[in-house]
């Protein structure tokens, strides 16, 4: 558990909305090719953390670093922070300071993709179109910002074919290929969840952030989702950051769990450790009346 293989390092992240402190001095790491779960009771600040990481909120304080290509670039982090630049690239890899980046660049450059708690698909467009929109930047470059595309140049047609191939690949992986020409809004709930993952994967991310992917799924669909996420992690060299309430999913697939409560980190470790951590049990289940004082004292400590 060295710091070296981190892909995302969050340090002292604080997010305040007026007087409300949604996230309070949170530090954790998501490691490469691992599934990191972010759990906690409702209102613990999990989605706020996600929104900070993916650029929808600018954090009040803190540093979020995304590391491409291994640990050797990490020593540059303080220089980068001091220089005021957004990112730095050396032979060994790149560093991105997410809190300084514009929202759309986090996906385009830092290669962080996300899904949403309330599904956000392009409902009026077909499943296939959803996946092509996800490859916008690549296709846009291939078509010289659509100018070459107007004249139907061969280079764009090839790029389009490649994009179609990638889309079909992910449709097969998520078992949606037979629905390719249906409007996304016509899909069942479980299919929409998987389509959102497929769409995120079409951006070719290095870090995939999933906001409650198992919400509303039945047990069979949850099991399929587990298998899908493990398969993605193992075959695509991908790191996953996951918010989830379904403990079956969390305990089944996570390599590492971070527990939040009231914006603070209360536990951090492997599933077996977190499962038995008294702080976590207290946060989730509460404690007996006679134990309150003791636990509070421990939490304070």
């Amino acid at each position, binding site marked *: 558990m060295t710091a070296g293989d981190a892909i995302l390092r969050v340090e002292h992240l604080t997010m305040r909305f007026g007087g409300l402190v949604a996230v309070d001095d949170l530090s954790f790491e998501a490691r490469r090719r691992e599934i990191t779960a972010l759990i906690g009771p409702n209102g613990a600040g999990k989605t706020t953390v996600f929104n900070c990481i*993916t*650029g*929808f909120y600018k954090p009040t304080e803190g540093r979020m670093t995304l590391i491409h290509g291994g640990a050797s670039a990490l020593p540059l982090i303080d220089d980068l922070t001091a220089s005021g630049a957004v990112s730095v690239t050396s032979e060994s890899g790149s560093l991105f300071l997410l809190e300084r980046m514009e*929202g*759309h*660049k*986090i*996906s*385009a*450059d830092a290669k962080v*993709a*996300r899904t*949403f708690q309330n599904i*956000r*698909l*392009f*409902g*009026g*467009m*077909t499943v*296939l*179109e959803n996946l*092509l*929109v*996800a490859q*916008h*930047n690549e*296709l*846009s470059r291939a*078509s010289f*910002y*659509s100018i070459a*595309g*107007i004249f*139907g140049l061969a280079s*764009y047609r090839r790029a389009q074919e490649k994009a*179609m191939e990638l889309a*079909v690949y992910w449709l097969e992986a998520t078992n949606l*290929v037979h629905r*390719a*020409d*249906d*409007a*996304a*809004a*016509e899909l069942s709930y479980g299919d929409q969840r998987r389509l959102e993952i497929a*769409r*995120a994967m079409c*951006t070719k991310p290095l870090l995939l952030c999933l906001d409650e992917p198992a919400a509303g799924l039945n047990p069979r669909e949850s099991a399929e989702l587990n298998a899908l996420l493990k398969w993605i992690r193992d075959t695509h060299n991908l790191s996953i950051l996951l918010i989830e309430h379904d403990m079956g999913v969390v305990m089944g697939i996570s390599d590492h769990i971070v527990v939040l409560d009231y914006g603070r980190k209360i536990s951090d470790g492997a599933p077996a450790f977190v499962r038995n951590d008294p702080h976590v049990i207290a946060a989730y289940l509460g404690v007996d009346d006679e134990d309150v004082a003791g636990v509070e004292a421990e939490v304070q400590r």
Partner: protein
Amino acid sequence: MAATEAIAASDAPRSVMGEALRDAGLAGLVAFILFGSLVGLVTEPQQEKLVLTYQWEYALGLALMVAAVRFLLDVFVWRRVVPVAAALPQGLMRYKRALLTALPALYILGGVLFLIPSFREGFGALGGSAGFEGEWLSRITTGLGLVSIAISGLFVLITGMLAARLVRIFVSWTRPQAGQAQMALTPQSLTRDLMSELAPALLIIALVLPLLVAGPQQRYAMDTAVRVVTMIMLGWGLNIVVGLAGLLDLGYVAFYAVGAYSYALIATEFGWSFWVCLPLAGIFAAFFGVMLGFPVLRLRGDYLAIVTLAFGEIIRIVLINWQSFTGGPSGINNIPQLGFFGLPFNRSDTGFHAFFGLEFNSVHRIIFFYYVILALALFTNFVTKRLRRLPIGRAWEALREDEIACRSLGINTVTTKLTAFAIGAMFAGFAGSFFATRQGFISPESFTFHESALVLAVVVLGGLGSQIGVVIASIALIGSSEFFRDLEEYRLLIFGACMVLLMTWRPRGLVSTRTPSAVLNRPKPITADIVEGSRA
């Protein structure tokens, strides 16, 4: 099983219909005999003798009206055999069949009316003729004239569809693998698939339109056609902003004005040719589009609409008040008119007619302008259709569906919005410079909010994002306001009523399905309900 039930159920109502039709036919026949002698034959005193003129068409029209009224009374008021209300649920199938049988009859009638213009004009001229004193009767006959024009229009449309179908069959013959079985020209396939030929049919008609309207009315008809096609082009341009990108723009006419004034000022100051000024006007308009785009980047829906509305007004007020530059309220005069490869359309020896040895005819200029705006509009359509299948077009539609999801996929929503504004504005700029060269005179009065509203109405009525919908809506909107010109002040009343009815009948516009921009196996049109549902 279900089919036999349906037939059994529809048996009784059909006999009601048959009886009513027979009854109506009889009434019509009697009316025709009566009107034939009373109205069909007219004696007029001329040069101290009576001249007999025939007006069978009036008699026929009146007889048809009697028959129609009789039929309606039979079915809905007297309800001779069984209550019609009971027959109504099954009525739809019968209605469709009746329409299909009526269509050939209408088609033949339309052909007669179209090919023998004296019939049509006979009806049309009737309203103003001295034959009848009664105002209402003259109104009715005017109405008949309009109906005959509509029917002959239908004839032209169906002929165009047939022509388009023949072209397609011919193409499928030269390329045998293109599914010949579906291309067979059978009566069933004809009625079923004819609607799919609507767009090519309209294109064919548009290309030969000057021939179709040849005659004394040609000038007026071509002028109207130029207005319709200009509206179509503006509609297609606005469709990019409103239909694809989902940005409600109430100030679209501002870009039209920018294009018109760009051409007018450059051409009068520097004397540059239209074809040089056209792209410049487009660029200026696109620049203004970006200027509008910046402040409204964060706005959506109602707020966006208000700001764009204000933008349109600002441009108009600047045009009025910046007297030294724009000529103020009196506008710009003597804008050079577009010539045919440099040959002006005038009586001079260097003009178009002298060059080709033709007799001077001012209609030729209008026909030329018609083809210019048609080419510009088709260019707009071509580019838009291409863009829809390109990354930028898909990004526009994705933006309309969900802006937050767009950002999470790395799409730069700022540039995406700005390009939508810029490209939409560019086409308005093209249309504007065409407007300036056609009119030869422009003033701020031509660019009021009314125009923006009209273009937006065309886009909304046609169905947001639908190209063919814009065409139908433009023809319906401008065509109907010309069509009902004889009704004078009532025409806006009818116009408003039609609009309300249409929006209750089809709240998502005439053509509300969306064609996917990319297809894996087979294309399925996406109905508006789904697009709507996902937006809610």
